[in-house]
């Protein structure tokens, strides 16, 4: 299998390219107002067709996370991170908490024990309590 910088076969490549960029916007690696890599830069990095990279960019433009500045390139739109985080919070329970609780149930870990485990893990990672 040819190395495509971590992209896999599970989903359309353009969706994966868009998700990678969205991750970088969400964690602040790509701050608002920052220029995002061009289609050709992304194509060369991931070793994918430029049209595929362009579709990934277009997906984020449609979601208004990116904006085009004529002649210069694509930039992270104002408010992109806030909107992205709000959207991801909404999906958090469904994507992470529900499977976590289900697996805990299978292993006989009750809710109190689960909460304790999360606290410990959170301390270990230097996380803060609200």
């Amino acid at each position, binding site marked *: 299998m*040819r190395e495509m910088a971590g992209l896999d*076969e599970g*989903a359309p490549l*353009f969706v994966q390219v868009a998700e990678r960029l969205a991750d970088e916007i969400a964690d602040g690696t790509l701050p608002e107002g920052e220029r995002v890599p061009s289609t050709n830069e992304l194509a060369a990095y991931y070793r994918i067709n430029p*049209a595929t990279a362009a579709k990934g960019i277009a997906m984020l433009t449609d979601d208004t996370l990116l904006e085009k500045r004529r002649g210069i390139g694509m930039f992270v739109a104002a408010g992109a991170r806030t909107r992205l985080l709000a959207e991801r919070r909404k999906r958090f329970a*469904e994507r992470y908490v529900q499977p976590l609780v289900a697996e805990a149930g299978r292993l006989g870990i009750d809710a109190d024990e689960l909460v304790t485990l999360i606290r410990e893990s959170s301390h270990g990672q230097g996380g803060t309590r609200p």
Partner: protein
Amino acid sequence: MTPAISVAGLSRRYRGQLALDNVSFDIGSGSITGLLGRNGAGKTTLLRIIAGHEFASAGSVRVLGARPVENDHVLRQMVFVREDQAYPDFRVGKAVQAASWFYPNWSHERAGALLEEFRLPLNRKIKKLSRGMRSALGIVIGLAARAEITLFDEPYAGLDPVARQIFYDWLLADYAEHPRTVLLSTHLIDEAAGLLERVMVIDRGQIVLNSGTDELRGGATSVSGPAIAVAEFTSGRPVWNRRRVAAQESAVVAGALDEADRARAAALHLHLEPLTLQQLVVHAVGSPEPPARERTSA
């Protein structure tokens, strides 16, 4: 817009053998398409007819809107790199020079860089080159020509993995700067998967699959785990193929899975793995997939 390549009802018969059987497709300009299929499936015949090297028995081929055969205008905008290309008794440098005279968009700069990258000795006679080096020379000409229609037929006989990676990276880089219509026949599907926007699969002279790679990816998933759980998960879904050992089973399920499906698979302790493009193509060619549709030509 006129398609870059338009093939309609194309058939080619050799002494009663049907090498191409009523093939039709259009390829838009500015795209990279993979032409896939087993040995003898008809890939080379199809490319040779598109390149104007061979006549059709029936049907039509239009390249850039015109018939390619003996059409100088079209031929100068089309480069065809074959597996084991035959060259006159030239040295490498002379062959490259001759190609540069023929192709109007030729890039000397790109040719020079590629010759160096592939470490091709300009003074060496082509006859004295190794098989891999001859392939590399074909690739240099194919890329430096910057021809609107670029046809590669298994261009990498004898090339090592490093040289193949050079080919993919330079094809991508040059294509990004100078978009054109590339048709690449290959067996190394997974290696080339990221480059391809479309794949056409040809089997026994017929196109059996013609689809965008985005639509294909994720189109089938291998589900494995305890046989009872696999049976529960796959019930009511189209299954291409099942394998079983003791109480473990692995089944290939056609169709995309959604989040609910994934959650259910996780709850059943099943392992999901998407099929690679190569595996999808193998299924398209040789699998006993939809049992309702029988193959007539066996």
